[in-house]
């Protein structure tokens, strides 16, 4: 299967007053057509920076140092800004964390979708309005005609996020990147939004790259998972395999550290602290906290396939 999106060896640095923040170090991931891939990691793992890099939304002091982002046969990093603009919003869309601040506060929400449609040729100007209302309805918003005329501040957080999802899917993109789309939303609303993403994704055939720190969401929604730690990709696997046979010590520690609502468990926090990205350790950035650490861990550790579709960046793991 040729991936729709394939990221290789992505390295992003931020030039700050305190020095160079090595935010992403040789990251890799792939998303197949129509697939739902979870990109998991804690804050500082580089997952959001990676998403912004894919959409070429990074600005100074951020700097893409190296890497290839292959989308539909083209390297996005090699495109001109003009070419990229026809990709962004049309072929690859994004849904961000805080829906209310992502929406334009001075335009009614319906108009925001209409503009997008007209710009990317999703609809002729005469039809855009009707199509925008249809998208709002598909996104589960009741009374869509009325809501289309409202402003972001008149809608609840959950409704704003539905508008964002409607906007993101209005142009029928091949790939939707959702960055922590349910942060700050109540549990029941969050569940609705995630279901909406999954159902609309299936219906339109869009692939979804879902960025989250919530392993529960990953388990229920994703086909495959990519785990990042301190800017590095440490593991990637089909979802069942990741939960039943996690290989990387960080992944295993992460799974052991989450409390469960469905059973009594002994929760074990991950020892140590996330390393500073200003002066990160050489080689594997989890090594200083890892109980399987050895001398080779200070060298660059590539992702190695240990089983079909299961890759790990760790020298201590057996297989192939």
């Amino acid at each position: 299967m040729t991936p729709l999106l394939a990221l290789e060896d992505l390295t992003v640095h931020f030039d700050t007053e305190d020095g160079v923040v090595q935010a992403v170090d040789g990251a890799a991931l792939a998303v197949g057509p129509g697939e739902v891939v979870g990109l998991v990691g804690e804050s500082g793992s580089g997952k959001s920076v990676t998403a912004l890099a894919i959409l070429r939304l990074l600005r100074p002091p951020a700097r893409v140092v190296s890497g290839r982002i292959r989308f539909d046969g083209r390297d996005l990093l090699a495109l001109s800004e003009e070419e990229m603009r026809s990709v962004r919003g049309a072929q690859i869309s994004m849904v961000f964390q805080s829906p209310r601040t992502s929406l334009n506060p001075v335009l009614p929400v319906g108009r925001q979708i209409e503009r997008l449609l007209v710009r990317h040729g999703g609809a002729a100007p005469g039809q855009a309005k009707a199509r925008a209302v249809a998208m709002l309805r598909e996104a589960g918003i009741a009374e869509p005609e009325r809501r289309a005329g409202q402003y972001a501040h008149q809608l609840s957080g959950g409704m704003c996020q539905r508008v964002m999802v409607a906007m993101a899917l209005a142009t029928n993109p091949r790939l939707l990147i959702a960055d922590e789309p349910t942060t700050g939303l109540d549990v029941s609303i969050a569940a609705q939004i995630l279901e909406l993403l999954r159902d609309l994704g299936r219906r339109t055939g869009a692939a979804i790259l879902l960025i989250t720190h919530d392993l529960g969401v990953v388990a229920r929604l994703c086909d495959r998972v990519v785990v990042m730690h301190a800017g590095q990709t440490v593991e990637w696997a089909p979802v069942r395999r990741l939960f039943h046979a996690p290989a990387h010590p960080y992944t295993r520690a992460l799974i052991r550290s989450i409390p469960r609502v469905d059973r009594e468990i002994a929760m074990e926090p991950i020892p140590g602290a996330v390393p500073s990205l200003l002066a990160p350790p050489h080689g594997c950035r989890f090594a200083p906290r890892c109980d399987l650490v050895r001398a080779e861990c200070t060298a660059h550790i590539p992702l190695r396939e240990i089983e079909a579709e299961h890759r790990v960046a760790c020298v201590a793991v057996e297989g192939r």
Partner: protein
Amino acid sequence: MHFPLRSLIPWRAPRLVHAVDGVSLHVDAGETLGLVGESGCGKSTLARCVLRLIEPTAGRIRFADTDLTALGDEDMRRRRREIQMVFQDPTASLNPRLSVAATVDEPLALHTPLTAQARRARVDEVLEEVGLGAGLRDRYPHQLSGGQRQRVNIARAIASRPRLVVLDEPTSALDVSLRARVILLLGELKRALGMTYLFISHDLSTVRYLCDRVAVMYLGVVVEEAPARELFDHPAHPYTRALLSCIPIPDPDAVQERLALAGEVPSPVDIPAGCRLRGRCPLAQPVCAEPVPVREVAPGHTVACHLV
């Protein structure tokens, strides 16, 4: 400790926001009571009422043998030595101009007769207890990580050896791995110091881990209350069951069906008569428009529902 109270926050006369409506709860010494619910349920308002940061409109808050609502300002201030609070945002809760030591010292200076030397020793002791170590005493909040800041908040809350600590979403603003550490810390302190906690959270897995009993709130009322394990293993109220079904389980093979509640939470200004979940509950019957009885479905397990 016992608090029956009704709190109505005036919003714009004559409309009132019924933030908390006729809630009765009790927390026994050494116990951890979890208070859960989504936004607008009234749990944070209730927490603030316990410390009289918000004045209840009606009702009593009995702490040990005293009715806190009947106390004058001076007496209430003295009582605050025994009831402390940890808030959600670790950064907003800390005075950026006070060092860690100064922050933790504040309640000691205000509420205890300890000498400066004794206070210094207590500050160091408490910093060790929360896993920060006396070495960080001269740092300022901006020099600390989010997890460390929250530990400072906890240190400050336990410094005067209060009998009750109210925690309002203490881990929501923290990252996944920090959350685990703070929860474990709270558990250890509970065991080591015999702390009593009123733990408010929307994060049900954390509540399961930490709490002995749990009360579920919806739109200003308690809909269900039970020992923690009983609540999670045998939820009875439709709202509790719907809430639990929404939490994704980190197991791709788990069978989990989401119980959907129609619509969104109604405004706490115009509250429907009878059961407040009526408009959204898939089981709603005509009888649900009547005042709701509270039934005991198992030892210590009460539910406010007509149909259970």
